[in-house]
């Protein structure tokens, strides 16, 4: 007995707080509709609806909670009806219900639905009773199937658009390009002097100023760097250098100098 009463009390408190939240969101929604209707956007309206729906959901969950006693078994009976203003009720209802009297009670404490709603519900019940159980079962199954199909389609669409969106975002960089660029900066892969001879170029520029060579034509063939260093490698060193085709071999004096010096050639 005690436990049930405690449970009832707790449930009632939870319900009151949920309903209060719901009321507040309704109030803000109405305010939004009345005052900001010219600035209102559809997503904002959707947000309010989503909020309300979420709150209704939690309300339902509270009602369905296993710790909730069967409220259906409880009966509410007004004990005292008076036509006088009741301050307590005023306070509790924020001024909406000033009097707990004979007019107010039937509206607030009713449990039966409206007559029209009751009529419609009776109609539906008779329709449902008329169909044979097999047909009813078939109808239920087809409804379930259609719902699950629809859900599947929606979730697939959502997944595809998400991955498509991701693919859109991922297109901000191309790893192959990254590698190409890094290789170009690191050792000149794909840059001018490395291109194989294009239009009308000679193979080795052994003779400087050979007539066929147009100045600056990118036709000077470069043997790849990672090859044998002992080979004679004619390389162009920019425009300024007149003696093109200098051999790659160095006088030994310079070589030993560089070898003995540390990294910084001007070290004291």
């Amino acid at each position: 007995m005690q436990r049930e009463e405690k449970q009832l009390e707790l449930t009632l408190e939870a319900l009151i707080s949920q309903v209060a939240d719901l009321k507040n969101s309704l109030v803000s929604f109405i305010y939004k509709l009345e005052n900001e209707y010219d600035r209102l956007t559809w997503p904002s309206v959707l947000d309010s609806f989503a909020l309300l729906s979420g709150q209704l959901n939690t309300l339902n969950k509270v009602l369905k909670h296993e710790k909730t006693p069967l409220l259906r078994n409880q009966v509410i009976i007004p004990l005292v009806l008076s036509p006088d203003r009741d301050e307590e009720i005023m306070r509790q209802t924020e001024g909406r219900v000033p009097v707990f009297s004979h007019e107010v009670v039937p509206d607030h404490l009713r449990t039966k639905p409206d007559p029209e709603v009751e009529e419609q519900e009776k109609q539906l019940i008779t329709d449902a009773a008329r169909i044979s159980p097999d047909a009813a079962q078939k109808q239920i199954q087809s409804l379930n199937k259609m719902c699950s199909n629809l859900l599947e389609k929606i979730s697939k669409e959502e997944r595809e658009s998400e991955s498509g969106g991701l693919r859109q975002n991922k297109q901000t960089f191309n790893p192959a390009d990254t590698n190409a660029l890094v290789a170009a900066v690191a050792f000149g892969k794909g840059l001018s002097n490395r291109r194989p001879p294009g239009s009308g170029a000679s193979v080795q520029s052994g003779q400087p100023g050979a007539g066929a060579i147009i100045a600056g034509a990118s036709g000077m063939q470069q043997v790849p760097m990672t090859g044998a260093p002992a080979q004679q490698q004619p390389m162009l060193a920019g425009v300024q250098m007149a003696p093109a085709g200098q051999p790659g071999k160095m006088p030994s004096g310079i070589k030993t100098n560089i070898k003995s010096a540390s990294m910084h050639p001007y070290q004291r």
Partner: protein
Amino acid sequence: MEAPPVTMMPVTGGTINMMEYLLQGSVLDQSLESLLHRLRGLCDNMEPETFLDHEMVFLLKGQQASPFVLRARRSMDKSGMPWHLRYLGQPEIGDKNRHALVRNCVDIATSDNLTDFLVEMGFRMDHEFVAKGHVFRKGIMKIMVYKIFRILMPGNTESIEPLSLSYLVELNVVAPAGQDIVSDDMRNFAEQLKPLVHLEKIDPKRLM
């Protein structure tokens, strides 16, 4: 003919050995604007700085297999700037925890007869390119977003064509050796640029 590893170098005065910590990535042309916006927000509040540089890479071939590489860079749009000579060592094979590529680096400002000097010393130009883009700074970190242009006629920097449809994004820090905490800061910064750009340490040897 690479410089001996840093730990063996005697500290005999002069310059401290500086290391370059590097992370690289790329961004497609169409996403460049969003990247620049993000960088403008993340980086130090400065005037957006663009640059147009012409870089030439010189090689000195010795008897050994690997040539000595020096990079000479000059500014094409800013007058009066010195030429920039740079040496970059081999990437240090650190532990996997190091998030950035680390290599020895020496930076020297020179006058504009650098190419003559290098050729006289025996260097030969291996390749050149033009880099055009933006540079941002955040503390000691420098972020460069630039497009590499291939030079069609050697020496003629007017006739250039882009190498690819992407911009190269580099995050680098030049700091004294041994400050590995720098690479953690770099990684945190790189996280903030995802998923627009994936900055990672790319070993150039893998791409040869």
